[in-house]
């Protein structure tokens, strides 16, 4: 029985016996006087201090035992009081102590609030309601815990680990729990400022601290988080329920992730190995099946694998990755122009073509370099002018001391040369990786490069391509 219940029950219990009495003239506490107290008398007897509260337990029948007091309850005098004499302002003072008495003096049933339990909040949650539950438990704005969790997640990842642990260990509150009241805007702003200042002060300590075993636990925590997120996206089941449910969803999400990874690798390998048409047909057939299934029998499970396959094959096609040429590292050092092939290719690995000892005749000499994934290094003598037309899907192009990198890198560098100079016209296609054109491999260790830019058009001095007359290098990304 709650406090509010007792506020209403008490007077009713007193009224019931009173109904057996001859009219309302008889207040229970005034048995000795036949007349019964008037309203004025009762008013004078109402001070709280005078009430023998210990004698008024609600469980006891006040009339039958007639213990009490000269103090009538709040309701009884109301019926008896002459309207004009009843000081309405005093009525609340009659009822309030009655309620308090009844609440505090129930000996058999504890009437205090239920013990606080740390539960994940349903009404105040961003992910799993952990911070909302902590805020309710400690009576603190949950934003404090959220900021702290994010900060700890960014500094060593402990926040993520702790959040996941809390997600697994703290039960969720029931669906019928009262909603958490919102925090006032001013208090929230103040809280954010205070927490921000605390973090600012604690930042060096957080950086210097770290978590024991973070090298293992944090990646595991990330994996679990990603698993939960993937399963959330796939099935719509968020991080709710008990620890077993969350763990099960994380495992299912990780399983889906592994399956998608296998499909992506297989599709990418097939597309890069020349099976792009087959992969494209399979993807289209999957799309037709999904579309047709929408009208017959939905095959939603096919959506994610089909999308994974399509995106992996499309990424390979966009990068221009071609695995023709095999896998491994290849080093070529042709001794003469006759040994120099027109085309060098490699699927995955490092391709190095060293022309420093190659006797190249004057004039233009075309050279094609195709690399799927890896690094292509072209080492040329100082007296050779290099013209470069390079396409890199994802990666970087370095030509002497200039470079350009990113996605869809397209570099065109067409300097002129004297007729008596060897001009190497390089056409390179790299899917994922780097193309380096240098005079000396040691230059690759030098990290100082200038970006390719249209500003370099016409500029020549100092770009390393010294054998050329000029350059009009440009990069399009």
């Amino acid at each position, binding site marked *: 029985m709650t406090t509010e219940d007792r506020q209403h029950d008490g007077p009713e219990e007193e009224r019931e016996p009173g109904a057996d009495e001859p009219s309302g003239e008889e207040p229970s506490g005034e048995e000795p006087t036949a007349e019964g107290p008037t309203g004025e008398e009762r008013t004078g007897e109402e001070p709280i201090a005078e009430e023998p509260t210990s004698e008024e337990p609600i469980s006891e029948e006040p009339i039958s035992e007639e213990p009490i007091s000269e103090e009538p309850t709040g309701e009884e005098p109301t019926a008896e009081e002459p309207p004009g004499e009843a000081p309405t302002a005093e009525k609340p003072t009659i009822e309030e102590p009655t309620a308090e008495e009844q609440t505090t003096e129930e000996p058999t049933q504890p009437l205090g609030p239920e013990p606080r339990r740390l539960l994940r909040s349903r009404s105040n949650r961003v992910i799993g309601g952990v911070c909302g539950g902590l805020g309710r438990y400690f009576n603190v704005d949950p934003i404090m815990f959220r900021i702290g969790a994010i900060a700890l997640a960014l500094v060593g990842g402990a926040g993520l680990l702790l959040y996941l642990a809390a997600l697994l260990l703290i039960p969720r509150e029931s669906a019928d729990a009262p909603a958490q009241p919102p925090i006032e805007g001013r208090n929230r702003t103040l809280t954010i400022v205070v927490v921000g200042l605390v973090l600012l002060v604690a930042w060096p300590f957080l950086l210097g601290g770290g978590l024991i075993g973070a090298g293992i636990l944090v990646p595991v925590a990330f994996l679990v988080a990603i698993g939960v997120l993937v399963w959330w996206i796939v099935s719509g089941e968020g991080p709710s329920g008990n620890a077993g449910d969350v763990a099960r969803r994380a495992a299912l999400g990780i399983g889906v992730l592994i399956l998608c990874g296998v499909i992506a690798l297989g599709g990418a390998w097939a597309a890069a190995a020349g099976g792009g048409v087959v992969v494209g047909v399979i993807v289209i057939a999957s*799309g037709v099946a999904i579309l047709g299934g929408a009208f017959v029998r939905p095959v939603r499970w096919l959506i994610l694998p089909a999308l994974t396959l399509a995106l992996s094959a499309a990424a390979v096609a966009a990068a221009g990755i071609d695995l023709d040429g095999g896998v491994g590292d290849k080093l070529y050092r042709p001794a003469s122009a006759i040994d120099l092939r027109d085309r060098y290719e490699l699927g995955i690995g490092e391709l190095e073509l060293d022309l420093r000892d190659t006797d190249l005749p004057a004039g233009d000499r075309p050279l094609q370099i195709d690399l799927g994934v890896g690094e292509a290094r072209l080492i040329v003598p100082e007296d050779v002018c290099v013209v470069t037309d390079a396409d890199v899907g994802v990666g970087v192009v370095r030509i002497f001391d200039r470079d350009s990198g990113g996605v869809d890198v397209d570099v065109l560098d067409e300097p002129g040369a004297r007729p008596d100079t060897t001009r190497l016209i390089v056409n390179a296609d790299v899917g994922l990786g780097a193309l380096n054109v240098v005079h000396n491999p040691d230059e690759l260790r030098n990290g100082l490069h200038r970006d390719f830019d249209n500003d370099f058009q016409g500029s020549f001095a100092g770009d390393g391509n010294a054998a050329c007359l000029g350059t009009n290098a440009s990069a399009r990304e």
Partner: protein
Amino acid sequence: MPSIVAGIAVLALGAVVLLDETGVIELSFGLLAPVACAAAGAILLASGLARRG
């Protein structure tokens, strides 16, 4: 609804891959990125609308 949108999106991606393989278009990340984002966004949007409905 989500299956229809997803089917169309997968079909579109497959067509892009096939067109690149046959040399009709030259696929690059600059083209693929918006296509992939649009496909994924359409599927998520359809799923969200279906769930809400």
